[in-house]
């Protein structure tokens, strides 16, 4: 625990020093190295706990009577802590390179340690009040980082949407914790645990509140609207951090809720699965039609959060049936995917950051052919794309495999409603799998392959090493987990078991299967190596010529005639037009795909409310007489009520 406290203090100190110091260098130094040091300090106990050395006790501090601030770490917290600290280290190293010359970002970077610290504190919080405070501090810190470039209108809008989404969601969490408090008389989690089981209606209500509150942060449909705005607006390392770990704190919240409100019911899992499937399907569809690379990645995060949620929903249904095998597969798949998504989404956002940094545009249709000038970035983007599509060899496959396995098992063991959901889950996942190929072949293909579509950016060079190495580490880890998935199975199983006492299954079958997969992957790599050698040997003596791409008889093709992002997406977007609702911007001759939840629900809701209010405002006549009459009428009404009350 001391290490973790020290780590939190380090973050705080880093932020304060960075805020107070003058000049760019010390500011960068304090904020980035502070995070590195703090994260390393925190990583140690987290890893220790995950290797099975029990949980850490609680620390208490009470500033206000009745509201204690308690910290503690169990396996679930440690699992998230490890992800948070690990990614933070790499991102802060990346930031050192990224920050050079970004004056405005540097002056906002003291919020970076605050954000990391708040995330850590959120997962360490052991009482509702501290949780809420950390939760909002986390939102605020990330808000300020998102809206660094607030000179631009879009960024302001994005920041605002993010702020209101997260704060309104917190209202649900406030109610959640207060209802929990009402039941147990204390905000401490352990007291809440002592009062289990809750009445089914209360537990159900709590669960729904938690899903709304945490789902918003996680980016679950239809509460995801802030996400596609915030990610493009934020600087790339921040997008990576937010997408990689911050939105996972929402998932943490849902998992923590499951431990707090007791034995789950079947419909909880159903709710999660339905929301998850909606997120998957719509997330991947929207991702596919995006022109902006970071918006694409943001929607892809929505999809992946959907996958995680489906897995948790499956786990919950497994618990409710009860079917420990499915429950284990569901929860393990979710946790595994959380790690995996942190890895490959980290790579994707950071390498997208490299691209944006060098090419100064996020529009994919203005890019192309960047693999040659930026080989490292490109290669890693490829690795991450393959991983996020869930191909074997890469880490993404393992988690998707676990989740599929659970869903298939559900198709076998479940009945009625749950069976239907399990099957629908497979379909949704398959749909996402097929479209993920589309999305990431588009992203990688349009940005890194072919010719550059914009002549202005032909003089692109690779970014400095400090911006390559963190991505490289992430990429190696992504491959490593794909090769030897067993290596993090232990911690995951430990975490799953800490979620619920009912997990008594031996998971050796899974370990065996993972070992088989590992061997197959090795075989594929070996086979590929052999084939490459053969190919090399064949071509060694033969004439190999370089020429232009065959133009099918057309003489003067220009790079701008290549298939671009929009044309690539055309067949599918035509097919799904009813869901996508493209809005034609006649001024720019472009199509913009509005978000279903945003355009059809939130924007009209806000507009209607505003209009209603403006009607009400019109009643204000601003005459003294009217004001007095209003007062008088109020008085008379109250007196009449009193007379009625009195009788």
């Amino acid at each position, binding site marked *: 625990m001391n290490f973790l406290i020290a780590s939190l203090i380090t973050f705080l100190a880093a932020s304060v020093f960075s805020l107070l110091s003058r000049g760019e260098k010390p500011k960068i130094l304090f904020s980035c190295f502070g995070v590195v040091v703090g994260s390393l300090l925190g990583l140690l106990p987290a890893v220790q706990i995950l290797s099975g050395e029990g949980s850490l006790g609680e620390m208490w501090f009470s*500033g*206000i*009577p*009745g509201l204690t*601030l308690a910290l503690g770490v169990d396996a679930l917290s440690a699992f998230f802590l490890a992800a948070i600290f690990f990614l933070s280290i790499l991102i802060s190293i990346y930031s050192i390179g990224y920050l050079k010359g970004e004056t405005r970002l540097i002056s906002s970077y003291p919020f970076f340690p605050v954000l990391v610290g708040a995330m850590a504190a959120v997962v360490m919080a052991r009482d509702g*009040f501290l949780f*809420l*405070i950390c939760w*909002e*501090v986390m939102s*605020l810190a990330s808000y300020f980082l998102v*809206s660094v470039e*607030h*000179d631009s209108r879009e960024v*302001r809008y994005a*920041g*605002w949407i993010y*702020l*209101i989404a997260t*704060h*309104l969601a917190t*209202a649900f969490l*406030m*109610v959640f914790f*207060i*209802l929990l*408090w*009402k039941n147990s008389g204390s905000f401490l989690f352990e007291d809440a645990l002592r009062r289990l089981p809750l009445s089914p209606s209360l537990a159900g209500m709590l669960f729904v509140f938690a899903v709304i509150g945490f789902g918003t942060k996680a980016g679950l449909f239809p509460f995801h609207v802030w996400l596609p705005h915030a990610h493009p607006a934020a600087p790339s390392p921040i997008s990576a951090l937010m997408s990689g770990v911050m939105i996972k704190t929402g998932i943490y919240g849902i998992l923590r809720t499951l431990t707090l409100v007791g034995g789950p019911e079947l419909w909880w899992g159903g709710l999660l699965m339905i929301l998850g499937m909606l997120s998957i399907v719509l997330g991947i569809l929207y991702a596919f039609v995006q022109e902006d690379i970071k918006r694409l990645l943001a929607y892809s995060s929505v999809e992946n959060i959907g996958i995680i949620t489906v897995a948790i929903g499956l786990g919950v249904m497994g618990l409710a049936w009860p079917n420990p095998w499915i429950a284990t597969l569901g929860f393990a798949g979710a946790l595994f995917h959380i790690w995996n998504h942190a890895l490959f989404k980290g790579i994707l956002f950071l390498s997208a950051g490299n691209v944006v940094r060098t090419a100064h545009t996020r529009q994919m249709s203005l890019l192309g052919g960047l693999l040659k000038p930026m080989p490292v970035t490109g290669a890693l983007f490829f690795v991450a794309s393959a991983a996020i599509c869930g191909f074997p060899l890469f880490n993404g496959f393992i988690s998707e495999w676990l989740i599929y396995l659970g869903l298939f098992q559900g198709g076998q063991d479940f009945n009625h409603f749950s069976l239907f959901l399990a099957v629908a889950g497979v379909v949704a996942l398959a749909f996402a799998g097929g479209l993920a190929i589309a999305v990431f072949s588009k992203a990688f293909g349009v940005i890194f392959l072919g010719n550059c579509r914009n002549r202005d950016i032909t003089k692109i060079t690779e970014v400095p090493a400090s911006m390559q190495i963190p991505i490289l580490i992430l990429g190696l880890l992504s491959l490593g987990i794909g090769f030897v998935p067993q290596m993090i199975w232990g911690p995951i199983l430990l975490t799953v078991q800490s979620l619920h006492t009912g997990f008594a299954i031996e998971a050796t079958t899974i370990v065996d299967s993972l070992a088989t997969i590992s061997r197959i992957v090795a075989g594929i790599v070996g086979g590929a190596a052999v084939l490459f050698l053969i190919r090399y040997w064949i071509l060694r003596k033969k004439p190999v010529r370089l020429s232009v791409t065959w133009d099918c008889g057309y003489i003067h093709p220009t790079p701008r005639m290549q298939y671009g992002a929009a044309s690539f997406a055309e067949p599918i977007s035509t097919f799904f037009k009813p869901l996508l609702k493209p809005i034609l911007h006649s001024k720019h001759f472009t199509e913009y795909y509005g978000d279903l939840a945003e355009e059809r629900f939130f924007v009209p809701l*806000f507009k209607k*409310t*505003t209009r209603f*209010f*403006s009607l*009400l*405002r019109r009643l*204000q006549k601003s005459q*003294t007489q009217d*004001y*007095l009459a*209003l*007062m008088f009428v*109020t*008085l008379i009404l*109250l*007196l009449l009520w*009193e007379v009625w*009350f*009195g009788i």
Partner: protein
Amino acid sequence: MILLFLITIPALLGVATLFISGEEKRKTRRRILMLGASLHFAGTLSLYFSGVSRKWNDYILLDPLGLLFLSITSLLFFLVAIYSFGYFYKEHKPPTKEGGTKEGVRHLYTPCMLFFLSAMSLTTMTTHLGLLWVGIEATTLATAPLIYYHHHEQALEATWKYLLICSVGIALALLGVFFIAAAGKGSGVDLFVESFVEKAAILNPRWLRIGFILILVGFGTKMGLAPMHTWLPDAHSEAPSPVSALLSGALLNAAFLGILRCYQICFAAHLADFAGTLLTLFGLVSLFVAAVFITAQRDYKRMLAYSSVEHMGILSLGIGVGAGFGSLLHVISHSLTKCLLFLLAGQIVLTYRTKKTTEVHGLLRTLPMTGILFTIGGLAIVGFPPFSPFLSEFLILKEGFAAGHSVAMAFYLIFLGIIFVSMSQILFGMLQGEKRELPHKMERTYLMMVAPVFLAAAIFLFGFYLPAPMVVFLNSAAKLLGGPL
């Protein structure tokens, strides 16, 4: 003795200042203001040390509730006095159409401020209903010239409305006092709250209820509860910013104290349900009205004024659902935060020469210090942790749910949400954006920054930590209202 001293010293200084007129004596007047503020603040502080009697005679005495309000007033007054030095210095310097003032009433600023302080002290230091009423009426009269400070048409209109509506309100409150007195007629009570509480069992509930309604409407007008709040946005937006800060931070509290005193009686007479329902109702209506008018608001001082309506609604709601501790804490939170915001708004008015939200952009880049403090204040006022309004609003929510007022709490949250959405849009619209080069950029008046920095630090600290004595003290005050933590 100190109590008497707290009432009379400002008054005497005020009378003395009346004779120091003329533009050239401006500095002298400000110094006297500072002197009065410091003496009062010192006196208030000394009350916290044991050995100082909190009772002068039957009429002038301080219970915990009074001490709470007195301390807030004294502190805010002290801070505003410091701020005034810089503010009026700057406001005077570049003579423009908006900010410029005519000679004549300006010399009334200091005496009226001091009279206001005196009246406020009287209000907090008595449990006698009649004297309380006198104190509150006196605050109205003392602040009217302050609102009229700028002497232009709008100021005149605001002052007229303020004076007339509040006077009518206070007349109703007087009627309410009579009704409460009538409730105890024949049972040998005098007009002290304590004696009513003592004899609560034999009070006529009918008269008590009518009396409470009248008091609620009457003092509610002064406090700014909707739908009697109508004067408030006008007065707050037209008054000079230090005055707005005091109006919002201190004056509204005085009326709230008036209502609390009557609630004390109702509570003792087992009418807590009745009074609570009314307070809850007014709280929710105020929240709703504030939400309606904050949305798409074009004048940021009016927005802050409506936010005061909102927070008065929260206070009323808090007492109504039985969250005594939370409400009293919210009194502190709101006073500090709103004072901070109005003081900064003054800074912004001076720099941008406009009160329109659409014309203020890029505050964070143009005036970094003001911008940062305004961000803190803005986030605090919309209920973001880790600032103290969040804590108090959270406590109210918690107690509300605990007492089973789920529906009221749901509306509370919805209205807070709407206000948050509207207000954050306006606030961040002002804060963010490109840097503006303005002709009147004069941020570095340290005197004007002392108070905001102090206030920001205080609301931050109280967001997650309340000193133990403060908790004890708030609890003893909340016990009078039946809602200790």
